[in-house]
């Protein structure tokens, strides 16, 4: 029994976590690998915290148990910290260097950890910080930040870069293929510098 390679993608509803997980699924199909995934649908997507589980070579259920994920991709720093217990010991975290303040902080006056505080609390992890919005903007559209993040994390996936890139090109809207191709490649290059 080969163990699956387990990826968590976390963020905020609307940030494109579902597209990122679809790209991974498509890349697995291209390589003829089995894959399982679970994601948040329904009202939880309304600006709430969302999580996607993707298990490359997964043959059983779609859920990744806490403490066992091989890699965690966080589209938001606070969400990365919130789900950090899903990572296995020595697991890698690729984190977007950006934090959207939850409305609850303003309305209920809750305290929010600072960016430095979050980085300090993740000190035991193999952390790679990516400025995804900036890289995406340079690639042509800040909306491609999700593909930048996927590119940055992709060095660690047991998948070929060309399968992932083909999957990106198949799944993004046709008029954004050029931008997203660049977003993937520059994201991957940024991941290499971590």
């Amino acid at each position, binding site marked *: 029994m080969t163990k699956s390679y387990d990826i968590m993608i976390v963020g*905020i*509803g609307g940030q494109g976590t579902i597209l990122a*997980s*679809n790209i991974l*699924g*498509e890349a*697995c*199909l291209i390589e003829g*690998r*089995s*894959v*399982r*995934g*679970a*994601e*948040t*649908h*329904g*009202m*939880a*997507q*309304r*600006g*709430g*915290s969302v999580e996607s589980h993707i298990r490359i070579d*997964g043959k*059983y*259920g*779609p*859920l990744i*148990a*806490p*403490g*066992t994920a091989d890699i965690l991709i966080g589209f938001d720093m*606070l*969400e990365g*910290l*919130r789900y*950090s*217990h*899903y990572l*296995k*010991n020595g697991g890698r975290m690729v984190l977007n260097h950006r934090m959207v*303040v*939850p*409305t*609850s*902080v*303003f*309305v209920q006056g*809750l*305290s*929010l*950890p600072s960016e430095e505080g979050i980085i300090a*609390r993740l000190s035991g992890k193999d952390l790679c910080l990516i400025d995804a919005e900036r890289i995406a903007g340079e690639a042509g559209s800040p909306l491609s930040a999700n593909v930048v993040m996927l590119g940055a994390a992709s060095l660690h996936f047991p998948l070929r870069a060309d399968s992932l890139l083909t999957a990106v090109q198949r799944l993004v809207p046709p008029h954004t293929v050029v931008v997203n191709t660049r977003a993937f490649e520059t994201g991957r290059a940024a991941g290499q510098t971590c």
Partner: protein
Amino acid sequence: MERRYLLGNEAIAHGCLESPISFVSGYPGTPSSEVIEVLSSLPDRSYYTEWSVNEKVALENALAAAWCGIRALCTMKHVGLNVAADPLMTSAYTGVTGGLVIMAADDPFAHSSQNEQDSRMYAKFARIPCLDPATIQEAHDMVRDAFSLSEELGLPVLFRPTTRICHSKGDVELGPVIENTRKGEFHRDPRQYVVIPAHTRILHKKLNEKQPKVRKKLHETGYNHATLRGRRAVIASGIAATYVQEVLPADISFMKIGAYPIDEEWLAEFVRLHDEVLVIEELAPVLEEVVREVAGCVTVFGKKDGHSPWEGELAPDSVARIMASCGFSPAMTFPPVTPVPDLPPRPPILCAGCMHRPVFSAIRKVFRDGIYPSDIGCYTLGIQLGAVDTTICMGASITIGSGISHSGEEREIIATIGDSTFLHTGIQGLLNAVYNGARMTIVILDNRTTAMTGHQPNPTTGLTACGTPAPQVSLEALCRACGVQFVETVDPYDMTSLTYALKEAKERPGVKVIIAKQICVINARRAGIKRGKYRVDQETCTGCGICISFGCPAIERLEEKASIGELCSGCSVCAQLCPAGAIRKEGPR
């Protein structure tokens, strides 16, 4: 044959196309909605598709289609089956000629639901077959084959996937789509379709006599299977079976159940080959009860002896812990981990520019000491704004409100209900409230869509499930027809008119209805409606915090002043609320 990476519900929809189906109806409900969304959006449809106004209506429509000899699918979430329970129970008596598959999607952990009921109990209650898939592939295969199973047995089949099937993804092997060529024809047969006592007594007897055949036929499907490996066994059902397989050691036998009712002789034979048996299933102990009935002196572990939980969803780690607690060493153990404490939560929130927010804000102002019964939709999030006191099930805002008004409670009652929910089961409550002289104000939050479940059209939208034009129902005329004297329609972005209408309603006796009408902000964005953006003038802002407490996700606090971010949709409500006049539309003045 084709292999694709699909959402469970997409795979289920494809399974239906391979059957093929002739008729589809349902009411949206997480996690079931995408099946009809897929089926209604495909080009070249050879089958009829509708979003019905509620689940009872949907099931009766589908039942009629199946009586006419065509294959019908009816989809809903688990609690929708409560609404459809009336036709469900008797449809088992009348039976069907065309295949009828009722998909009731269960939601262990209540990710998006008001309870965690187990639809397998309904199948047992109605004495109809129940299929409980363990994987997306199995869900696809089961639903594809369920229609012919239904025809062979002459019974509706309950198909019960759970959230982690519907909203999971996997690589799925698909078969060819088959074009529907059946055409319905009703054959008059009062003894079958008119359930007067003289007929129904006979039909009930026939239903009971069918049961051995049902068990035998379901056993032949192969959805229930077992492997003998030792003196101890795990028996699991639905998606929990995959969690068990992930952590199952080589010396423990395994039985997987996907179809009910179970062939009890086969089950008994398996159980008695073991010394100890552990039953793993989510929610109710439906499988465990059957195992205990046949177990004799074999030790059975499960929910009834406290090893396994009755609520919530399972996962590989919780299954491993249950196994360990019974002395079944799992093949894998999981490190104990604790989530990071004390982080600010990020719950779902009403969108920036959502029409519900100003309504709740105005209600709180005008009916300061009011009681706020509410209903099921995005607007249940009004709980964050302190304007939702009750929610129990679809349509219950008005009925709970009228019940409170007759209880002797003297405070003002102001109920909120969405357009789709009002049309689902709100109308009857309104009719009843007017008829029996209740005292309350009802605000219909009319955003012209069923937003929470993914913007499915309803009779206020002007479109059917397949996008063809349909007459738009007049909520105003509907309320007047129920006998409401005071019916006012207002734009919730216009705080002055909204507040005025609420104050006027407060002064009047009886049942009053205000229809707050404004297109859902997500649909407005998709339609390309641009209202400009608002900005806070930092000089004028006094930092009073009134706009912050409005709770719009576009409004942030920077230092001591407010600021509006990119999420702003231009609804202008915060500008109307600002006492300092510091919020203005962007651009030249």
